């Protein structure tokens, strides 16, 4: 799966967020998509980079938590949106690559 899928996932995630905001919060949706990744850097810096890259859309689904023992920042995504879990994971990896290597890694 390429990064196109990842970008699509974030777009779908953001759209789903917008839809969800207009719905009753207690409404139960499809099974949750949960994904997490750990990246270097403190949560504030990581969150700033996330906002720079993705904007604020979908932010309510994303948490930035300090990893224990100075291991960086855990990014947790938890959404009931109808997005493929693999695509969300790919997007998290792409974000980690950008932060840690300065580029999207391509073969």
């Amino acid at each position, binding site marked *: 799966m390429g990064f196109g899928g990842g970008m699509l996932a974030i777009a779908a995630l953001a759209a789903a967020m917008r839809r969800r905001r207009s719905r009753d919060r207690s409404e139960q949706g499809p099974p949750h998509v949960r994904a997490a990744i750990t990246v270097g850097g403190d949560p504030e810096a990581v969150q700033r980079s996330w906002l720079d890259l993705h904007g604020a859309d979908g932010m309510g689904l994303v948490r930035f938590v300090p990893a224990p023992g100075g291991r960086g920042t855990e990014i947790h995504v938890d959404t009931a949106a109808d997005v493929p879990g*693999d695509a969300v994971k790919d997007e998290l*990896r792409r974000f980690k690559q950008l932060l840690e*290597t300065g580029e999207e890694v391509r073969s």
Partner: protein
Amino acid sequence: MRATVWSGRNSVQVDNVPDPKIMSSRDAIVRVTSTAICGSDLHLYDGYVPTMKRGDVLGHEFMGEVVETGGDVDNLSVGDRVVVPFPIACGGCAACKSGLYSLCENSNPNAGMAEKLWGYSPCGIFGYSHMLGGYAGGQAEYARVPFADVGPIRIENGLTDDQLLFLSDIFPTGYMGAELCDIAPGDTIAVWGAGPVGQLAIASAYLLGAERVIAIDRFPYRLDMARDKGGAETIDYERTPDVVEILKEMTGGRGPDACIDAVGMEAHHAHGPIHAYDRVKQATRMETDRPHALREAIMACRNGGTVSVMGVYGGFVDKFPIGAVVNRSLTIKSGQCHVQRYLRPLLERIENDEIDPSYVITHRMSLEDAPTGYETFKHKRDGCMKVVLTP
């Protein structure tokens, strides 16, 4: 350019493919001067590694001359002579910062595929399936080297390609296999597989202070090299199949202090029915790997000893003697080699004449003859130990 491409099970060919291009500011393009066929390339050739595609450029052991660099590669210049490590590693993630380069968290763009098979993804590797990144390999006239600011080591001495090429994989791999054994004075190390990695594991075990090294194989020419070049004692398991008992006897009943599996997933077994059991299960995909060497290494290792697994395994094995591991306090260590961290110290060992790994080379061919090289190596024809190709 000309490149060796995978063209299906038991088939490689040398084809015209597009020249590699700089895709990132951290890339370099290397004009390959020497490249080798690795034992693990035979696992691709034999069709045991999933996610290969026809036309994939093979090869992860190569060195050459830098002909182009991206804007952020300031450690290399055009014209530099370099050896390229087979793991592709970014240098910036937690794994790389810990020296675990083959576990780079960023270099495999297809990490999701590897996670499905292995739980988590290791690094990307040149020319070694799409699951490990889909990168074009180095059995070619040119190769694109990602993260060239991290991986390649610049060579500033007058040593030959033959002396340096194996820094790319098999010398560090053999060395790490020995290092994982935590060798103490007086230790006996047993090495399954006297192929190129096994030979260099034998040599490395002595470099790291082993008292005795015992090599186990079935090809007399390989055992001869282990004995004559490596200084190992040898066991031919086809002539004397009861390897565990022989090792016990050779070590005063204690067993080897550590055992190195330098065989991996396509092991053979002297007992026909046992080999047939695993061969059939592998052929029908009920197990992916034939673990005879690993089973035997575990059974032979002394109580409290270490089993170092450097042979390549891809998936799942059957009849794994976990009871021996648990009840006899064995430690199993493994990993694809973290080549980047060994390049400098092992280059110094070559420069200091402590070792010249080129003794494993038995065949030199033009890149155009790569298909013959694969066949010769696979079938162990003509005393084949290691094939070096020159583009």
